[in-house]
């Protein structure tokens, strides 16, 4: 659609040009390590065909995607098209996106290495292995261009550890009482975790929003789009979506990925 119009203000000249397209929710990784596009909106989703296979881990910010395969880290654009890749160690990876979603972090569980995608290139973060020694990394986030956040599990308690991305130095460590794994730091700064009533979205200002959800027994959380979190049943591979947009927090079932 290209509707063009012009009007004058006292100081401004404004023209409008608009387009229509199916709304994108993001991308999800199914139980068979395939990645699928999801279009739709709250309460109405369509899962698309496979766009990528062999994914060990995958996450999307809405404008950027990261896919970890056995040996590579692949960066994709908003349409799921690969735009860059680099070698990666085997095993799982955790991803975190910067606010706005145009830069990202990847943490490789097997080696403890942290890599930044700054929108143009990959950069390694000089992370000292001792920094996270004795901790299991649950989630990571790209808080700003100089700060990476780790949610780590230590002796049954979760902590948030902020690390400088230029030096790898720990800046702060904050206990997260009442939060248990799995948990996910979202690009918006929200922290998502589960309790007995479902999922909790803890906003950056500390306000919590309880979202009723009938959760699988064992599940994984991953950002699947701008304001959307994928909940994947680790047993069945069934997919659910949590909307974390302020005022719209809700839990949905995604249509089963049908081959």
């Amino acid at each position: 659609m290209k509707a063009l119009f012009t009007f004058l203000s006292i100081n401004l000249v404004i023209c409008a040009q608009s387009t229509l397209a199916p709304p994108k929710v993001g991308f999800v990784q199914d139980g068979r390590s395939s990645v699928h596009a999801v279009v739709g909106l709250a309460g109405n989703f369509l899962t698309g065909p496979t766009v990528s296979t062999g994914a060990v881990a995958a996450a999307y910010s809405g404008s950027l995607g990261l896919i970890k395969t056995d040996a590579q880290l692949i960066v994709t654009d908003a349409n799921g098209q690969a735009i860059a890749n680099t070698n990666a160690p085997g095993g799982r990876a955790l991803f975190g996106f910067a606010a706005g979603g145009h830069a990202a972090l990847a943490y490789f569980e097997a080696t403890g290495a942290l890599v930044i995608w700054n929108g143009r290139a990959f950069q390694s973060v000089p992370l000292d292995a001792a920094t996270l020694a004795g901790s299991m990394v649950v989630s990571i986030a790209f808080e700003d261009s100089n700060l990476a956040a780790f949610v780590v599990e230590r002796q049954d308690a979760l902590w948030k550890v902020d690390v400088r991305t230029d030096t790898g130095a720990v800046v702060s460590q904050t206990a997260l009482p009442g939060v248990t794994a799995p948990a996910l730091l979202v690009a918006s700064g929200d922290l998502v975790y589960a309790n007995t009533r479902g999922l909790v979205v803890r906003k950056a200002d500390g306000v919590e929003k309880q979202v009723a959800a009938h959760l699988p027994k064992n599940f994984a959380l991953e950002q699947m789009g701008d304001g959307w979190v994928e909940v994947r049943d680790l047993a069945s591979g069934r997919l659910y979506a949590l909307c974390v947009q302020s005022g719209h927090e809700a839990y949905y079932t995604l249509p089963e990925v049908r081959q």
Partner: protein
Amino acid sequence: MIARAVLFASLLPLSALAQLEVYVVNGTTETPVGAIVNITASPGDTVTTTFSVRNTGSAPAVLNTLSLAGTGFSFGTVPQLPYTLPPYTGSPVSEAQFQVSFSPTAVLTYNAFLNVNTIEVILQGNVTQSAVLTLAGSSTPITAGSIIDFGSVLAGETKLLGFNLSNPGSSAIPVGALSVAGAGFKGPIGASAPLSLAPGQTVSFQVEFLPNSGQTFQGTLAVDQRTFVLTGQGLNPPLPTASIVFGSSVGQSAQQNTVSIPLASASQVAGYGTLTMTFQPSVQGVEDDTAVQFLSGPTRNATVTISPGDTSAQFDGGASDLAFQTGTTAGTITFTLTLNGNSTPAAQATLTIAPAAVNLQTVTCVRLLGELNVSAIGFDNTYSASELGFTFFDKTGAQVEPGAVQVNAGSDFQSYFATTQAGGMFGLLAAFPVSGDTSQIVSVNFQVTNSVGTTQVTGITIGN
């Protein structure tokens, strides 16, 4: 004399070299008959005896004559004569079989002549008085071999039939055996053998039919050497009445709902079926909305199973409900349940999605270099969106001239809806190139109109 005999033999046709023999058939055993065949029965009984005829010669033989003369005896099944018998091969196929029924009416001795071509056999009917079996409430004797039908009975339920054993004679009748055999039948209840029936005495007993499944059952009631066939049809109890219930009865677009199939009572039997979802859009020219679907399994069909004891049908995985979504197109979603292969629906329910004003789930505006972008995500379940309206405000709250900007986007929406596979969903991005200081513009109101009404979102803060 010898010479004449040789001459006679040489004039015989080849078939004369054939030789017929008659046998009595008892199950799979065949016994050659002698001159006399004894058949025992009681008054009122009909005893059927099967005979077979073999050709033990080396050439085909023709069975021309099959006759029976005598009271109380009659033919049952007989072959059509003349009947050519091949040389006997050891297989019943090469035999001819016929049946003779003996139906005595009194305690007498009966005789009859049975002729098979030139073979003559005397049938001697020996009649002994035995206890008369009748159904309770009936005076009609039941003859040996008769079928006693219990009719149809639901599996798990029972039906009793009463019988009387009586002695109409003038001397006592001993009954050495009285038994019931066969799956699904039980008895006798109320009498047991051996017993002796005095003249005029009647002994009552019952036989129970208790089928455990929906199949035909057959058993035997034996009174001494006489047997009676017990039969009954087991019936599967019908499935309880099923209904279709929605988690939410509110019919709206973009809803995730659940459907369940409660049963009127706990089912006594197993069953299976299919819950089918169909969608009839009410938007002219629209045939379907693929987002109207079950959220697991096939998109529009769900298999349901019912096990004994279930109070609701189960979907795949044992769940008692199934999630579905309503799409973003106005229309009617119909759920149809069929059970046990019966094409007549066991239940049907509809969810009507009424046409509604455009639903805007999110509207955002961001300030870019020399540009303002308004993004809206929503749906129009009427596919009739037309007017868009944008009103920008400055820091003082005043409208930015020239005020509300109206865009007739009807044809663009029509083009979009005609080609998209996303139903009534849309993502709208309106870009406003700006000459001047965009930071002076701080908020925007957005509205969109369709055939039902106008939806407006106000005070959208412009972000960076």
